[in-house]
Structures are given as C-alpha cells and as structure tokens.
C-alpha cells in the first residue's frame, strides 16, 4: 500500500472535498480560511504523490523533482496568503459584533 499511489490520492481527494464542503457550510470566516488551507494541503499531497510514483529520472532519487518544488512554492504561497487574508478579515470584523460572512452585504445588487 505504501508503494502505490491509490491511498495517497484517496486521502487527497477526501481532504479536498472536506475542505470544499467546509468552505460552503461554515459562516465563520476563520473556519472558511482553514478549509482553504485544507484544500491547499490536499493538492500538495497530490503533487507529491504524482511526482513520487512517476517514471523515475536517472540521477534523481524519488522521482522527478517537479512535485516537491511545487509543493514548496504552494506552501510559501499559502503562508503569505494566510497572513494577508487574516489581516483583511481582522480589519473587517474588528468592529463588528457578529463574525459572520453573511453579514457582509454591502456589495448587494
């Protein structure tokens, strides 16, 4: 099982779906952000899996290096995005009583 990609891909799919569902059904913006992190992680896992189980490149250990590099980049991006996004959320919700995205209706119409 450790030597075939199915399990990893299954986990990746499941976590991605869970993140997706969580994004829709939760109203707390922070939890929505965490769901986004879940989805990013799932995609990272998929990257790693595909790179690991692809055709091996001579000279490199553990498959082509596209997967890990891209995972690294995504991690960085996720970190940066988390910081900036949370800063925005705090700015918006600092003065409100209810931390609920459904209350943000200024762009209606």
């Amino acid at each position, binding site marked *: 099982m450790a030597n075939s990609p199915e399990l990893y891909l299954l986990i990746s799919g499941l976590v991605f779906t869970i993140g*997706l569902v969580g*994004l*829709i059904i939760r*109203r707390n913006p922070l939890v929505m952000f965490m769901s986004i992190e879940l989805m990013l992680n799932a995609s990272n896992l998929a990257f790693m899996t595909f790179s690991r189980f692809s055709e091996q490149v001579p000279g490199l250990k553990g498959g082509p290096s596209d997967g890990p590099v891209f995972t690294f980049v995504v991690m960085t991006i996720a970190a940066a995005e988390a910081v900036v996004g949370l800063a925005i959320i705090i700015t918006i919700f600092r003065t409100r009583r209810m931390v609920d*995205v*459904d209350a*943000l*209706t*200024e*762009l*209606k*119409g």
Partner: protein
Amino acid sequence: MQFDSMILTLILPVLGALLIGTMGSRWGRNSAAVVASGSIFLSFLVVLCNLWQAWPNPVARSVDLWKWASFTLDSGTHDIYFGIYVDALSLTLMAVITGVGFLIHWFSTEYMKGDPGYTRYFCYLNLFIAAMTLLVLANNFALLIVGWGGVGFASFALIGFWREKPSAAAAAKKAFVMNVIGDIGLMIAVFVLFQNLHTLDYATVLHDGLDTIRLDSSRGQWLPLVLLGLLVGAYAKSAQLPLHTWLPDAMEGPTPVSALIHAATMVTAGVYLLVRTHPLLELSPAFLQMVAVLGAITALYAAYCALYQTDLKRVLAYSTMSQLGYMFLAVGVGAYSAAIFHLVTHAFFKALLFLSAGIVIHAAHGEQDMRRLGGLYKDIPYTAWMFGIGGLALAGMFPFAGYFSKEAILHAAHGHIVLYLIGAVVALMTAFYTGRAFFMTFFGPQRVESPHLPGGPTVISCTILTILSVVAGFFAAPFARFLTPGPEAEGFEIHTDFTFEGIVITVLVAASILIAWALYGKGQPDKFGRNVTHNNFVRSGLQVDAAYLMWANGFRDLGRLCAKALDKVFTTLLPGLVGSSFWGMGKSLTETQTGQIRHYMVSMMLSVVVLLFYALLVGGGSLL
C-alpha cells in the same frame, strides 16, 4: 442649335413672365400689363407669319434645339431632345392660344384693374401661355409632359388667384389633384412607350415607327396601357367623365382666366393630345370606340347638369364640358379635322361668352347668380348683343360658327346611330340652357342697381371675338385642307353640305331657343333653379363630386386612425415593450448579485465541477 422662328413664341411669354415676376412691383401695373399683352401679341404675329408661309399646304417640320437627356441602356444610347414640332395642327392651336390669349390679356387690363394682385395675375397668365405653347409645340412626349404639368400648375395658380378666399383655394387644390391623376396616367403611358420603342420622338413614334408597332406581336401587352394612360391624361385635363369635377369649381378664378384656361385652351389640351396621337389610337379600334362613347355620355351629362345651374359661370363651365364631349366624340369616330375645327370655333364663342359674362358680373357688382340678375339689356345692350351672338354660335344656329363645326361632328357620327341621337339631343339641350341663361340675365325685371358699365378694352376684345364667332364657320373647307397631313390621310374632311337631318336639327334648335324665350323672356321664376331635392342633386353634378369627397375623406380618416393607433403602437407600445423587457432582464440578473460570499463560492464551485465533468465525459480524459 438651329433657329426656328417659332421658338420666339416660346421665349416671349417666358420672358414676359420673368420680367413681370421680378420687376413687376418696381415697374408698376401698367408696365406689367403692357409687357404681358405685348409678348403674347408678338407671339401671335410670329404665328401668323408661320401660318402665312405654311398656307395652304404646310410641311411638318421637327426641329431639335438641343440635347436634353441621354440614356444608355442595353439596347443602346437613347437621346431626348428639346425640340419643337411645327405642323398644321400645332400652328392651328398656336394661333388660337396666342390670338385668343392676346384678346383675353387685353380684356384683363381693364377687367382686373382694381385688383391688388394685378401684376401677379399677368405674370401667371404669361406663364400659362408659355406652358401651353410648350405643350403644343413639343416634338416629343417627354417635353409634352413638361408643358402638361406646367399648364396644370398655371391653372392651380390662377384658379386660386384670390388666395384668401377659402373656396378658391379649395377649388385650386381640387383642380390640381385631379390634373395630377391625369399626369400620372400620361407619364405611365410615356414610360411604357419608351420602354418598348426606346424613343419618344413624335416623328418616330407616330410615323416611322408605326410599322414596327404593327409588326410587334407583343404589342397587346403594352399598347393598351399606353392608350389608357393617354386617355386618363386627356380626360383629366379636359374635364371629361369621370375626372371632371374640378371644372365647375374652377369658376372660382377670375372670369378671364375661366375664359382662357377653362374654355379656349387648357381644357382643349386633351383633344390636342388625342388628335396628335391618333395613329396610335387607330391601332386599337376598341379604344376609339370607348373615346366616342364616353365623349357622348359626358356631353349628355354636362348638358343635363347645365340646365339646373343657377350660377352664370357654372352654366358656361358645364357647357364647356359638354362641347369638349363633342370633340372627343368626333375623335372617337375618326373625324379629327371636325374635332379641331370645333375646338377653334368653340374657343371663339366660348371665350366670347365668358368675357361678356365677365362684363355682366362686373356690371352687377360681382353678382353671379342668375336669379338675381335681369333686365341688363337696358344697361349694357351691346354686351347683350355679343352674348347673344355667342350663345347662338354655341347653340349651333346657322349661320354662326358653331353651326358648321357641330354639323361637321354630327355628320361624322352618322354611322353610329346612338351617338348621333345623343349628339342631336345634346344640341337641343345646349340651345335651351343657353337661351335660359341669356334671357334670365338680360331680360325680365331689373334686379341690379346702378350697373357698372364696361370700358374700351373689354368691349373691343369681345367685339373681335364676336366677329370671329360669326365668320369662322365659313372657312371650314380651306381649314380642313390645311389640316390634312397627307393625300391618303383619312378623317380629315369636314362636311358642311346641308343634309336633311341637319336642317331638322337646326329647326329644332331654333324651337328650343324660342321655348326658352317663352319661359324666361319676361323674367318668370326659374323652375330649374328651385331648391328641391332633384334640382339640387342635378345641380351638384349628380353628386359625383360628393362621392369623390367621401372617398377622399375615407382615406383621410383612415390616415388619422392609423396615425393615432399606429403612432401609439410604435412610439409607446413597442419601445415600451423593448425597454421593459430589457429592464426586466437586467433586474432579474441583478438578483444574482446578492453580495453574499458563500453564494458566489457555490457558483464558482459548481462551475468547476461542471467543467470537470465536461472534460471527463466529453473529452474522454484527453482534456485533462
């Protein structure tokens, strides 16, 4: 550009009209009158010179002056020239137009003296003469149409001369509209002619090209259309049934105008047209038959209506219609010279009648209703004599001019018994209503106070016309010879020998006049003028006019209805629909902008899922 002396007859009136139109107000009334009358007199002299040269056997000549238009079609290049055609027919008509026209100009110098529009009058009058000259002298159909339209316009301007009078304006409009109907008919005829013959030249169409038409097997498709168009044009211009209702109303214009345009010249344009195009008409005997029949019917109808008229000028208007019917009858039976001869004599005595009627009206201070005239013989005896002679000429009494021309026509109609009988009956009716008009106006108790007496020009011009009305008849034979275009030409004889029927009719005519004297000589009340239903019905021209009015009003009302309804639909409903549908669409689209993040997310996700499935299903995985 070749020079032909007859061009002067065209240039002079145009010049006159231009001068009066531009300088009239500066030069003064007398100058306007002199310029106008002078130009026509000079034209008349030119015509006389040409007549002198051409007598007794004229050679027809067609002079192209300059190239007017050029068309390049598949069949080649076709040119239309501005040119004149001088032959016996056009010279005859020119003599009438310029001669009688000059006399009427002269008459008008005194008659229109007090009128504020004096100079405008002479400008229009010259314009009319110019247009009529062009009509008669044109050597191709295109130019004919120009002249045709020109006289229509001049008629409109002159009928509606007293612009502030609503009845005059309405009459002018009616005349113009009916003339336009005729114009359209004429134009369609000319278009079809050009389409099939590729030329509009008289010389080609009416002489050289006849064989081409005879041999053309498809002529049955287009020739009737041409002939019909010509007839429509002629009927509108000459006020024949059914396009006749404008003529009685045209009496709203000044009396000299009625004399010139609606007795002597413009209304005869229809007769001229048919005589000019008689080679084409002869190709279809059915059409000629129709012309004769309609002519007779119009003559009868007009004579009947004339009996019931109470307005002096209207009697003369219906009388003109009736006499024109005679001319068309003559054309229909192929007696072209007789028709033209009657045209000439009729110009003389009808102009005389109208002008003396003008003197009467002036004497009666504008009164035209015969029931309010009477006893004028005592005040203007000379005018009474002239009117009487004109009336006798009209009635066809021997030895006046009308007798000879009417006899000629009746003789020609000899072969068609019904037409002959109608002609004879009309002659009797003519005598009667003329007598009635004469006696009601000049005899009986005097109903006019201090009548205004006529002056020199009016009397002298009428005198000249009187003389012509007396003597013109004796020139029938030389005139017929003059008109005959060639040795083999048929239909150009004028028979003036005494026939048994002729004598009978003359006796009956005399009897009719005597009956009229008996009924009206002492100023008895007029049975025909009474205000009863039948009388009013006939007086209104058998309500033909009213029927046309209903028809026209129908269109007007339909137009108004459409305007209201359609307007509402197109300016309110439709734009409203379009606008509101767009607005509705926009509004429903704004419903999707809820401002809720989660809604947007859901739509994004659904889109991604849909795209994913699309790629999987349709692309078979190859898209991934």
